[in-house]
């Protein structure tokens, strides 16, 4: 099957500012793809190009088999979008806005809309002017998730939602995925992406620095170990692949490259392990590692 989204060598400049600098991204059909990166990395810019709102300076972009700029209208029939900062018409009610946006997309599934309004605990009769930030976000979410589309493009869609609503969102996206739809989910909330995403792409400074399944990315990276031992641990620094070792009286923590994990744990056993916690790298660590490598290279 052809991928839902293929982007290669994407460049976007705003006057002198270079927002995207040769970005590559592939989103396969039917997957939830996490799109991660620090502030200003270029996530929203990429998404705005995918939506045909902004024109690429150079590079190729294919979305659902079409050109997002030239075929914008036809493509938008098959996708729905939620931005991270939702602005609504102040003198329309939330319910009106959901309908307007739904109709603009070509009609809305009434039953699904009512169900989502209930699940997100939204009062659709309030004027948009009086909604809190989270409630504005819910309006856009309901309208997008109620749409019968192949692709959902979500740009930090849960910014401002409380943890309960965040959980509802996770459920709904899981259902969407089960229904075979494709989701591009940009986020800072790493836990959200970890549970939902099949694959992720990490962007930084307008380039993709990593892409693949979480398992594969973790394999490439370090495991963090914290242990308590009977006698103080020595000689860790001399082991290959061990980083950031910190030893206290009877406790030690360090991170270790995947291929040296075995040797490191063996070394520990010689000091009498009392407890051992190991956790795979979080996405924060994935990102941090990239900063470190780049800083080291610079």
């Amino acid at each position, binding site marked *: 099957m052809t991928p839902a989204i293929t982007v290669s060598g994407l460049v976007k400049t705003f006057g002198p500012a270079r927002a995207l600098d040769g970005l590559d991204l592939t989103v396969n059909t039917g997957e939830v793809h996490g799109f991660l990166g620090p502030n200003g990395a270029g996530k929203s810019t990429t998404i705005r190009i995918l939506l045909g709102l902004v*024109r690429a300076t150079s590079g190729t972009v294919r979305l659902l088999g079409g050109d997002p700029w030239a075929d914008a209208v036809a493509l938008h029939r098959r996708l729905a979008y939620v931005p991270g900062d939702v602005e609504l018409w102040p003198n329309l009610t939330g319910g009106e806005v959901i309908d307007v946006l739904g109709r603009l997309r070509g009609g809305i599934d009434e039953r699904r809309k009512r169900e989502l309004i209930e699940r997100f605990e939204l009062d659709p009769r309030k004027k948009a002017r009086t909604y809190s930030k989270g409630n504005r976000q819910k309006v856009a979410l309901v309208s997008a998730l109620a749409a019968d589309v192949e692709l959902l493009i979500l740009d930090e869609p849960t910014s401002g939602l409380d943890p309960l609503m965040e959980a509802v969102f996770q459920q709904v996206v899981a259902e969407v995925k089960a229904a075979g739809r494709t989701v591009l989910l940009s986020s800072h909330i790493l836990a959200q992406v970890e549970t939902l995403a099949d694959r992720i792409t990490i962007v930084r400074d307008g380039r993709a620095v990593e892409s693949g399944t979480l398992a594969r990315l973790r394999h490439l990276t370090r495991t963090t170990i914290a242990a308590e031992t009977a006698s103080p641990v020595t000689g860790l620094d001399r082991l290959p692949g061990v980083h950031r070792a910190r030893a206290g009286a009877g406790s030690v923590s360090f991170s270790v490259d995947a291929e040296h994990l075995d040797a490191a744990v063996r070394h520990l056993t010689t000091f009498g392990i009392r407890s051992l916690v190991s956790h795979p790298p979080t996405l924060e660590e994935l990102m941090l590692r990239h900063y470190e490598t780049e800083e080291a290279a610079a």
Partner: protein
Amino acid sequence: MTATSSRPRDGGGPLTGTGAMVRLALRRDRLRLPIWVLVVVALVPRFYYAATSAVVPTPQALADATRLIRASFMRVLAGPFFGAEAVTTQKYFLAAYWVEFLLAAALMNILLVTRHTRAEEQSGRAELVRAAVVGRPAQLTAALVVAAAGNAVLALLAAVAAGAIGFTAGGALLFGASLAAAGMVFAAVAAVTAQLTEHPRGATGLAGAVLFVAWLLRGAGSLQAEQGGPLFWLSPIGWSQQTRVLAGDRWWPLGLSVLLAALLVAAAYALAGRRDLGAALVAARPGTACAPVWLRSPLALALRLRRAAIVSWAAAFLAVGLVLGGMTGAMSVTDLPIFAGADFGRAWLGLMVFTGSLYTGVHAVLSVLRLRAEEVRGLAGPVLAGPTSRRAWFGSSLLASALAVVALLTVYGVALGAGAALSTGDGRLVAEVAWASLRRVPEVLVLLAVPAALLGLAPRAAGAAAWAVLGCSGFVAVLGAYLRLPGPLVNASVLSHLPWHPLEAAAPVATVVLLGLAAALTGLGLYGLRRRDLSTG
């Protein structure tokens, strides 16, 4: 939502979604647009009544009025005058007030189109809309369709009103059409300016500048020849007047309006189809990384936030002042009854000084209403959460607005005086006109204090009420005498108390009273602001 559900047809035409956008715009403007149209239409009989009371009684009065209207002074303001051979009250009505109707129609269209195009982009709502099945130019198209519909209704109702005041059927229709044509040209102008700047206010300002130039060219052309000289034909407002309603009704000049509107719309589409959503013609340049040292007090912040507005207004005032002042020399001295014995150039300058004060009032209201926007959009929160009190925030913002008022009136007065001095060779005019302009500070301060009071007492209504006060005060002050409005009503206008002429007239009592009123209103606003809840975004 009253619109029925409609599934756009398949295919991806660029205009897909226009129908839905039109319905959305009508829903959003269900009060605003009818009010605009009805107010403009209602002024037809109102002005006619004024015209009858001005000229009807005797043939002598009619002859006097004709002389008045043919004077260069009036020609600049309202000209030209067609059909002077056989004056009727209907013709007098057109000669005196047609331009006002054309300006109102143009303004209605500029505000409407900007509101549904650039303002939507800047707010971020257009992003949600454009990500749906909506073609790139659909929002622009919808704005123009709504403008066209509004203009059509305006034309019809204005024609009915004109018929009711004794226009021939053909003349009444042509009068309505002339308003719609001017409206459509400026809808198209706004469609272009909306593509050029990032902020809706900039787009409105640019379109307003075009409108002013059109008004000016029409005035200058009227000076060139009674029926309109070559400059006149450069003005879209002038084309509407060249239909010569009731003086040989001709439709063809409206063809020029249609042509220009079509060209401008085509230009707007070309620009809109090419650019990024939310982008201006030129990309924003990076600014400084640190705040300058002087930016450390609430007052400094208030001035910094208003800097761009103050500078662009000052530039516009400088240009406008020079041009209007430069016309002084061309004002011939005639036997106008209302200015009998007066120095005609100075009478013109007095009126222009007053006009400057009215526009400075517009700036003042915008500047104060900014506070409301800051509050609602959550920009005031971080400032007020710090050690800045509400009084300091409110007071220093108002002080910044007041300083801007003084600066603008100074710039305008000096420019107007310099223009007048250049055209008449009388150098004393610079100081004289500048001083006359500065003397109007108190009334503008009251205009500034009105929204300030409302901000404290009735924040939700502040915008509408402040514009209503400004509009009505200006209207009554300018036209009260012509319209024979009752004395108490005229006196209720903030702008009726400082004399316009002679230029050197001082009014110490009124000055003190107005300053006191401004202070009291400001105090009231602060009182309200300290007691009410702040609105959040």
